[in-house]
């Protein structure tokens, strides 16, 4: 049975992060969803999951852009107040998780398949606040506490 009344924020950067997130689309079937992504080019792929917010790309090397994306994520979190955030990363997904968590949401994080030997930088931060933290390499469950392996997305 699905949980129809939960409001869920789907957060992922355009590209591999989003492709991986969408492989678990069955899990939020019937829920009230909206999405946060980083580029206009993936808007159409997210259209079926409710309102789409595009916050722009950013990474550690561009602090001003990080701030701009952070403020957009904050506005979205305050406006939407989701019950749950589901994210595969990267930076924008991480910020959305922290902001929504601060406003009372539960956090589901699925670390990207590209993180073989250690978690992503975002994942290492989100691990401390996540309510469900999944990895795609079983070895990582031995290295980190509070992480689970349920399978591979790709």
């Amino acid at each position, binding site marked *: 049975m699905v949980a129809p009344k939960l409001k869920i924020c789907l957060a992922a950067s355009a590209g591999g992060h989003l492709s991986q997130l969408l492989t678990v689309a069955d899990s939020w079937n019937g829920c009230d969803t909206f999405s946060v992504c980083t580029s206009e080019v993936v808007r159409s792929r997210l259209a079926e999951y409710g309102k789409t917010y595009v916050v722009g790309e950013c990474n550690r090397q561009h602090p001003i852009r990080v701030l701009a994306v952070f403020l957009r994520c904050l506005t979205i979190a305050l406006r939407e107040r989701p019950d749950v955030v589901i994210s595969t990363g990267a930076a924008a997904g991480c910020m959305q998780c922290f902001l929504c968590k601060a406003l009372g949401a539960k956090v589901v994080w699925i670390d990207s398949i590209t993180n073989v030997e250690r978690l992503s930088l975002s994942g290492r931060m989100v691990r401390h606040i996540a309510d469900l933290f999944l990895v795609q390499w079983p070895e990582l469950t031995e290295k980190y506490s509070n992480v689970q392996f349920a399978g*591979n*997305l*790709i």
Partner: protein
Amino acid sequence: MIFLTVGTQFPFDRLVKGVDAAVDLGCINEEIFAQIGEGGCEPRNFPAVPSLDKESFDECVARADAIISHAGMGSITLAMSQAKPLLVMPRLKQYGEVVNDHQVAIARKFAEAELVLLAEDQQQLLDKIMLLPLFIPKRRIAQPELVSRRVLQFLNELKIT
């Protein structure tokens, strides 16, 4: 036809030059078409374009007998989904090709599982290019439905509490 692609973001001249040199040395007889990134070094031995829209890109992958690419997850996933023989060369931080060395780890994992061929330097690139026509990749089995079920279980527990 061999399709050489460096992904959408940055050029990867070390790979393009390496394949160009492989042609000079007679390691490749097949026709090659390359996507080399904006501002990438132009190969001498085969045609190349900076970028391709998604449709043209998919068409190149579909037409290719084999693919040579950086070890980006996008290229790997696409090649695997169509069971195309793929040779990957990971981008390295030391040459400024990427911000960290995550491509090395993922490429080694997939090469160990015989899903792709791996070249970590120029010599290996020449060796593996010659193996590429004979390489039959294993099929990767992913279980997104198991992950989906775990997430669903979590959401249902939330609804109850």
